Every structure is written in structure tokens, then in C-alpha cells.
């Protein structure tokens, strides 16, 4: 009887010790149990943006950190240099007014659209502008206080009846992002979009592989400001632009 009691006691202690030890080992080795309907490498939330006469930009999100790439139909590849879950690639050296089809790469594995077709985009006929007009902003994570570290963000402007083409960027480790509005065209890519005025800006932030983007719309006057209102992904919504004391 006494032996049984001692055995039970030892078993109890053993279990209590084993659970945190095993959990700790898994945590330290980066082991994760995944239950997901989506493939980890599959590109999601793909945004084709910044379409110019000689270049386009493609941004997307993957669940796993991979080296992203783009494979044009003619075999030309554009690859990122580091692994990430958030990807943006400038495809350059293109011809004006030409339709290009391409696949996205995740660690060299090629992906098409969900329909099975390649991605496709026609470059603009308007000559590329060398003008640069940088605007920027910051994204805060759903907790409302820390920076959103990583993500893909896109923006489209509306002025009166005209809508701009889409521009996109990757969010950096301090929640920052930057768009170049120089040479911005309308969404039909047939004329310049007047962005140096008061416009309605719709921004979409993609931070998860399997979720829709968080959408925010602001009224911005790019004639007088370059900094876009802070984007809060959570419930906290203190949309202020940091001021300058004494300004």
C-alpha cells in the first residue's frame, strides 16, 4: 500500500515536471503544430501595382517565410534575397503597352492564380516618369500600441470621378511604409492622376496569409503633407499625425 502511494506520488511529480519541460523544448526548437487548409507557401493577397511603361510591382503574403520570386513567361526571374512572409518585387526592363504573364515563386516552387491561370498585366503606354514624390505612414499592430512588424500595404486614391492606379509597399520592422506617387496614373493608365490635392485614400493592409486585408479610408491633402494618418489594425483608433512642438 505504501509502495503504491509512493509510486503515485512519483508519477504525479513526473507528470508535473514533464509537461513544462516538453513544452519548453518544443518552444525552443521552433516546433509548431499546424492545422491549416492553406498551403504554407501559397501566395495570398496578391497585389499587382505601380504599373508603369517599363516596370510593375507585385506584392503578396505567404504563411511560411520563403524566398519570393517572379517567373516571367520568357523565363526571366526576379528573386528576393532574403526569406520573408511579406513579399514585394519590382519587375523591371519591360516594354510599354505589352501584356506580360507570370508565375509567383516560393522557394523556386511556381504558383499560378487559384483558377490555374498565370497572373497577367499590361504595362502602361505612358512614358515612365523620373519624378519622385514620397509619402509615408505607420501601421500599429492589433494591440494598438506596438508597431506592426511586416505586412503588405496598398493604396488607391480617388479625386472626384477619377480613381488612381494602385501603389503598394511592404511594411518595415518599425511599422513604416513608403509610396512613391511620382508619375501616378489613373486606373486606366491613360493619363496622370493629380495627387497633389485633397484626395480620398483607401489603404489595405495584409498581415495574414489567410485573412482579408484591413481597410482604412482617409481624406489627405498631399499638397501640404507627406505623412499619412497612423493605421491601427485593432480597436484602438487614435488617428493623429505626430505634431511638432512649437510649429
Amino acid at each position, binding site marked *: 500500500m505504501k509502495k503504491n502511494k509512493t509510486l503515485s506520488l512519483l508519477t504525479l*511529480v513526473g507528470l508535473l515536471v514533464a509537461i513544462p519541460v516538453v513544452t519548453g523544448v518544443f518552444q525552443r526548437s521552433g516546433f509548431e503544430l499546424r492545422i491549416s487548409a492553406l498551403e504554407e507557401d501559397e501566395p495570398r493577397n496578391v497585389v499587382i501595382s505601380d504599373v508603369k511603361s517599363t516596370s510593375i510591382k507585385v506584392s503578396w503574403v505567404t504563411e511560411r517565410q520563403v524566398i519570393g520570386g517572379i517567373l516571367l513567361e520568357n523565363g526571366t526571374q526576379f528573386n528576393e534575397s532574403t526569406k520573408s512572409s511579406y513579399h514585394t518585387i519590382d519587375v523591371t526592363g519591360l516594354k510599354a503597352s505589352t501584356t506580360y504573364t507570370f508565375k509567383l515563386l516560393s522557394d523556386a516552387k511556381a504558383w499560378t492564380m487559384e483558377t490555374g491561370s498565370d497572373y497577367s498585366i499590361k504595362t502602361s503606354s505612358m512614358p515612365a516618369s523620373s519624378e519622385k514624390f514620397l509619402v509615408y505612414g505607420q501601421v500599429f499592430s492589433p494591440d494598438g500600441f506596438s*508597431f506592426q512588424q511586416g505586412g503588405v500595404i496598398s493604396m488607391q486614391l480617388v479625386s472626384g470621378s477619377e480613381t488612381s492606379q494602385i501603389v503598394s509597399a511592404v511594411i518595415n520592422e518599425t511599422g513604416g511604409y513608403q509610396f512613391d506617387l511620382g508619375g501616378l496614373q489613373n486606373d486606366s493608365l491613360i493619363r496622370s492622376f493629380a495627387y497633389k490635392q485633397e484626395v480620398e485614400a483607401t489603404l489595405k493592409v495584409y498581415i495574414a496569409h489567410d485573412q482579408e486585408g484591413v481597410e482604412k479610408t482617409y481624406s489627405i491633402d498631399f499638397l501640404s503633407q*507627406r505623412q499619412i494618418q497612423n493605421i491601427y489594425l485593432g480597436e484602438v483608433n487614435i488617428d493623429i499625425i505626430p505634431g511638432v512642438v512649437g510649429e
Partner: protein
Amino acid sequence: MKVLKFLLKYIFIFTIVFIVYTFIYHYQVSSSPNVKVEKTFIASDESISEVAGDNDLGYGVTNTGLSEGNIDKNGFYINIPRINLFKPIVKNVDPRYKEVYQESWKTGVSHGKFTALPDQIGNVYLFAHAVNDASKMNKENAWFSLIDELSESDQVIVYYKGQRYTYQVSRIYTVSPSATGVYTGVSPVPKVTMQTCGPPRGSVSSRYMVEALQVYVENF
């Protein structure tokens, strides 16, 4: 007696578990790798040196004849083509001590202590003296005398540790001398803020501010 035995037994179990948990916690903390956060906006991993101490360039460097071809590739320099300014930058100058920053101006433009460096995401804060009579600029080490001639889209080039960082002027404004809020290393995107006295040029009654956003980073 039975109750006492029961209590003692569970106190014993609790003590053992507590000791084991404490051991595991300390083991995990002590063996965790040191995470080095790169590109932080605080220059915390830099060895902060006084102006008269170790900096990238040493003293006695002037703007005479400085060009991309003859500067120290691992040094820290500013080049503003629009106003023909090409000077060394003295790293980590404390703006609270007049004798310290004035000493740094003998070498070149001051980089504000605790603000970002070009290879970090944040605000690189640069400051220098300005004089009303620009012909006295060299004599009085007033390297930012002409930055009030800059306008939006002008380029500001900074060389740092073998990289050429190109910025584009995006904002020009003035603040009162008490507006210390502008002195910060925090910015969601990499940028340079340049501060000098004025307007009017060289006046201590206000501060002239020029912000430039990073456009390119290249090896040089």
C-alpha cells in the same frame, strides 16, 4: 494528525514542483540567445563616443576637394549637390553641450547623439551652424548656411560605411528654438532631418528644418 500528514504531503509536492519550475525558468532564460535587433531607430548598439574621441574621420578634414573619389569609404559624409556642400559628419554629438557641438563643427556637420544612423530605420538628425554672410561660412564652420536654398525634391546624399544613401527633400519648415520635439531618432521610415539657425539665416530666434526621405541605398 491525519490532516497534518495530508498537508505536509502536499506542501512537499508543491515545493518539489516549485523548485523544478524555478530551475527550468532560469535555465531557459540563461541559455536564450541574445537577440540583436538590427535597424532599430535608437543607436543603442553604437559605441557612443565623445566628439573629441574616436570618430570615423578624425580632425582637420575640410570640404576642400572632397568628392566621392577621395573620401574614406567607411567614413560618414554629407553631400548636397544643390548647394555644393560636401563635408564629413561627426557621429553622436550631444546637442546639450555647446562646447562639444562647436568643437565638432571644426570637422564638419554634427550627427545628433541618440538619433538614427543611415543604416537604421529612423531619423538621422544632423545639425550645423549658419551665418548670414555666406562668404564667412568656411571661416565660421557654418556648414548649413545655405540649406535655406534647398527646395522640395533636391537630393541629399549621405555616405556611411561604404553605402551611398540618397534622400529627397520632402519638407521644409521652421520651429521655435524651444521646440525640442523635433530632435528625435524615431521615424517610421528612414529619413534625414537637418537643422540650423534661422530664418533669417543665422538668427538664433528660430530654427530652420529640412527633412529628406530616403530614396535609394547603393554600394559605392
